[in-house]
């Protein structure tokens, strides 16, 4: 048996035993919010949306991302191997096309997720570098990029303007009275649309009242109010 037909079998065999049949997701209301049933791709999509809507940088989903990237890689190599098989039937071509389409879809999500994080890292590079706790939310590569980006920017400011100024005005993080701080930080007061994935413990609203979100509830409130719920995966941003 040549390699291509071996892989063809692999393609089908994988289908038989690897992935459990997906649970029913009717999309009617909130049936798809259960953690145990949530498939990796759905999970990534949820974190991608959270990242898109949150003003702050969220913890990197390293394991999830690695799993998906691995899966993309495996699927692509299976597809490219099958493509080289001249005896493939039309049916086979069709499945390859579908698999290829899906790879592109997943790649889009991964790319958008990474780019969203990248843009936040560049916006808040110096703020992130000032806080070791925040650095824990970044992957190693992201942290490296944050450092080099902050350095680059500082050198650029230094070279182009600052070195010509008096010493007292050269700093990049002076507290200036009545002015916003010089280091840009995310605006945690920004309102977000939040959807409760299950019943949540109560949180305090800015006006001092308590709010207890029930599963399925949607609310518009400041990001800082629900930040802790978001980190516990109890809510998602929509």
């Amino acid at each position, binding site marked *: 048996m040549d390699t291509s037909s071996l892989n063809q079998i692999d393609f089908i065999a994988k289908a038989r035993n690897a992935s459990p049949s997906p649970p029913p997701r009717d999309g009617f209301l909130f049936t798809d919010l259960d953690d145990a049933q949530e498939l990796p791709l759905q999970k990534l999509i949820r974190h991608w949306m959270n990242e898109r809507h949150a003003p702050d940088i969220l913890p990197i989903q390293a394991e999830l991302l690695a799993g998906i990237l691995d899966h993309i890689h495996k699927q692509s190599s299976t597809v490219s191997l099958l493509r080289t098989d001249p005896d493939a039937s039309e049916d086979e071509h069709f499945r390859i096309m579908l698999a290829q389409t899906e790879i592109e879809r997943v790649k889009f999500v991964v790319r958008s997720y990474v780019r969203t994080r990248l843009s936040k890292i560049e916006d808040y590079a110096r703020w992130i570098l000032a806080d070791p706790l925040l650095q824990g939310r970044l992957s190693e590569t992201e942290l490296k990029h944050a450092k080099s980006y902050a350095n680059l920017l500082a050198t650029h400011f230094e070279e182009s303007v600052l070195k010509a100024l008096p010493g007292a005005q050269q700093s990049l993080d002076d507290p200036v009275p009545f002015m916003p701080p010089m280091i840009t930080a995310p605006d945690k007061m920004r309102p977000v649309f939040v959807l409760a994935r299950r019943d949540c413990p109560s949180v305090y*609203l800015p*006006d001092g009242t308590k709010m207890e979100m029930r599963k399925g509830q949607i*609310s*518009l409130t400041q990001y800082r109010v629900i930040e802790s719920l978001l980190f516990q995966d109890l809510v998602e941003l929509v």
Partner: protein
Amino acid sequence: MALPQSLRTSVTPPELELIASEQLIDIVPLVTMEKTAFISGAYGPLRPPAKARVPLWIAVNLKLKRKCHIVPPEWLSVESLQDKLTRETSNPGFSELPFRFAEISKVILDIASDDLENPDKIRTLLKDIREARQSKSREGISKLDHSELGLSGLCSMEINEIRPFFIKGMSVLTKLIRDPEHPPKLDET
């Protein structure tokens, strides 16, 4: 720019459509296909004329090549939508619709209107529902304050539609109310 300016404030409708296309839908395939492993799960086998359950994006793909018929979800029918519309216009709250109904109904109406009974009527009903709901969500602006606004029952596309204005409005109210002498307790920054 890592993320274009246009994508920074909100999600785009095509992105929402991509997310909604992961949801499963019933099809009647016209071709056979073995069970195949995809990244999101394993789907198939397709054996006409038995019904199969696949993600919407596969259904769209097959439909465009005339290789399947889409079985529309139960809520996407004239009776069901008529019922929703009646409830929508007689109750002050939002009636229960799938969270991503707007995206899913658009995709199905666009590519598989021949699989629907009376697609024109469905289109009109969806439009009426949309308008009834829109006026309700706009009424929500009058209740907007700096603290919280409950919007249960709203759907993803509708949230996306009101997002820029509501976020901006609430941010302004927050700034107006912020008391520099007694900074709110919650504020950690």
